[in-house]
C-alpha cells in the first residue's frame, strides 16, 4: 500500500466533498462552493496535501482561468467545477504536476463524469426530499434533520470523496501512461485551448448580464479599458461604478417625474431632495 499517496488522495477526496455546492459545513455555499470549491483554492489545498504548494497553486491557476465565470443558477450548473478541480488537479499532482495536464483532466472530468454524478445525485435527493416532506407533515423534527441533513450528506460524501480518492489512488498509473503517449502537437492544442476556454464562462456571464444588445457598448468599454488602457480589474470596477451611477441617476429622474405625475405637482424640487436621500439608503 502506497502510504505516500494514501493520505493526499484521501484528503483530496474529502475536500472534494467539502467544496461541493450541497455541503453545509463551511457556512453553506459561502465557505464551501464559493471558497473551497474554487479551483485556485483547490490547487492551494491539494498542494499542501501533496507537499508542493507552488505546483498546486500553478495547477489551480490554470484550471481557475477556465472556470472563472462558472455559474450555478436555479440548481443547474454548466460544468461540475468541484469534481473538475479536485479530480483534475489531484490526478495531475499525483503524476506530472503539470498545469496543462491538470487543466485537460479537469475539463474531461468536469464535463463528463462530473456532470453525470451531479445530476445523478440531484435525482437521488428527491428520495430524501420525499421523506423530509412526510416528516414535516408528521411533526417529526428528527425526521427533518435526518432527511434534510444527515442522509443526503452521507449520500454525497460517498458520491464525491470515494470516487475522487479511488481515481487518484488507482488512476495514477493509467494517467501516467496516457500522459506519456500524448504527442507534442496535442499538448500544444491543449495549451491554446486553456487560454480560449475562459471565453465560455465569460459568454455565459454575458448572457446573464447583457439584457439589451446596446449594452454591448459597456462590455466593449470594459474590454478596452483593460486591453488598451491597461487598467487593473479593481480600477475598472470603480469606473464601472461611476458609469452605473450615472445610468441610475439618468433613470431616476425619469421616474421622479413619473411619480410626481400621480401626485399633485407642487414642490418638484422638494421631492427631488427626498429622492436623493432615498438613494443613499438603498445603495449603501
Amino acid at each position, binding site marked *: 500500500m502506497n502510504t505516500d499517496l494514501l493520505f493526499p488522495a484521501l484528503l483530496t477526496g474529502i475536500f472534494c466533498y467539502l467544496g461541493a455546492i450541497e455541503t453545509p459545513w463551511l457556512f453553506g455555499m459561502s465557505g464551501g462552493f464559493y471558497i473551497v470549491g474554487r479551483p485556485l*483554492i483547490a490547487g492551494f489545498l491539494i498542494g499542501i496535501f501533496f507537499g508542493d504548494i507552488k505546483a498546486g497553486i500553478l495547477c489551480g*491557476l490554470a484550471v481557475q482561468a477556465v472556470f472563472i465565470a462558472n455559474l450555478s443558477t436555479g440548481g443547474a450548473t454548466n460544468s461540475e467545477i468541484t469534481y473538475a478541480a479536485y479530480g483534475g488537479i489531484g490526478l495531475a499532482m499525483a503524476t506530472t504536476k503539470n498545469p496543462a495536464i491538470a487543466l485537460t483532466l479537469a475539463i474531461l472530468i468536469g464535463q463528463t463524469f462530473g456532470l453525470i454524478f451531479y445530476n445523478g445525485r440531484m435525482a437521488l435527493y428527491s428520495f430524501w426530499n420525499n421523506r423530509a416532506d412526510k416528516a*414535516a407533515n408528521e411533526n417529526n423534527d428528527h425526521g427533518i434533520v435526518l432527511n434534510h441533513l444527515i442522509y443526503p450528506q452521507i449520500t454525497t460524501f460517498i458520491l464525491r470523496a470515494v470516487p475522487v480518492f479511488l481515481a487518484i489512488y488507482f488512476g495514477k498509473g493509467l494517467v501516467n501512461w496516457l500522459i506519456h503517449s500524448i504527442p507534442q502537437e496535442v499538448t500544444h492544442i491543449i495549451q491554446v485551448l486553456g487560454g480560449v476556454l475562459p471565453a465560455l464562462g465569460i459568454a455565459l456571464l454575458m448572457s446573464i448580464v447583457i439584457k439589451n444588445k446596446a449594452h454591448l457598448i459597456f462590455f466593449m468599454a470594459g474590454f478596452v479599458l483593460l486591453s488598451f488602457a491597461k487598467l487593473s480589474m479593481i480600477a475598472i470596477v470603480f469606473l464601472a461604478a461611476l458609469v452605473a451611477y450615472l445610468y441610475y441617476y439618468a433613470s431616476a429622474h425619469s421616474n421622479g417625474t413619473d411619480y410626481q405625475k400621480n401626485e399633485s405637482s407642487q414642490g418638484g424640487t422638494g421631492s427631488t431632495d427626498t429622492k436623493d436621500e432615498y438613494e443613499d439608503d438603498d*445603495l449603501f
Partner: protein
Amino acid sequence: MMNRDTSSPKKPLTKHELNQIWYRWGFTHLSSMSYEKIQAHAWAYSYIPFARKYYHDEPEKKRRLLKRHSMFYNTEPQTGQLINGIVASLEEQIALGNNVSEEMPVNIKATLMGPLAGIGDSIIQGIVVPILLSIAMSLASGGSPLGPIFYIVTYGILGPMISYIAFHSGYRLGVNAIDIIVGENSKRITDAFNILGVMVVGALAANTIVLKTIAKVPLGGKTKPLESVLNGIFPGLLPLIIVLFGWWLVSSKQYSATKVILILTVIVTIGCLIGLF
C-alpha cells in the same frame, strides 16, 4: 410549564433565537438540493427551534408551520437571506397571535425568491466572485500562496457578512422590505448593477481569455509576426472575437456549455494544425 398555555402572552424572539434561524439556513440551504425542491427543506429545518418555542403544545399549528416551509423554494442563498428575515418577522407575528395570515409568508417567499435570485446571482457570481478571483489570480502568479489566501479572507468575510446583513435588514423592515425589492427604485438599482456587471465582464474577458496567433505576414519584403501587427491595431482582438462568438452561440443559438466546448476545441485544433495559433 402550565403557565405557557395559549392564552398566556408569548415572548418575542430573542436575539439568539433569531440568529439560530439565520445560521440554520445559512449552513444547510442546499444540503438536500434536488431539482424538485432545491432549498425547500432548509426552511423547515431552520424553524424547528422556533416551532418548539411557540407551538410545543399546539401540534396542529406546528405541523402547519413545518408544512408551509417544506414547499419548493430557491433563491440566491446569501443575498436571499433578506427573505428569511422578512419571513422571520412575519412568523413571529403569527406566533404572537397578531393579525397576520399564515398565507402571508408563503406568498412572500413565492413573490420574492425570483427577483432576489436574479439580482443575487448577477452580483455574486457575475461581479464579486470573478473580480476577487481575478485579483487573487494575479497575486498567485508564480505560485504564490498570497493569491488563494487573499481570496479566502476576502470572500470568507464578504459572503457571511452579506448573508447576515440581508437577514437582519429583512427582519427589521418586515413587509416594508418588499416595496424596496420589487419596487420601481429596485428595478433601477438592479439595472445599474447590471451596467456595472457588463463593464466588469468586458474587462474580465480581456483579462482572462488568451489567444495569440503565431502566423507571420509579409510586409515590404520581410515577414512580421501577425500578433504584433494585431496588437498595434487592437490588443486583444482575437480574445474579443472568440468571446463574442461564444456569446452568440450561447445566447442566440442557445447552445449548451458542452457543445460550445466542443466547438471551441475544433476551432483551436484546426487553428493549431494550420499554423495559426
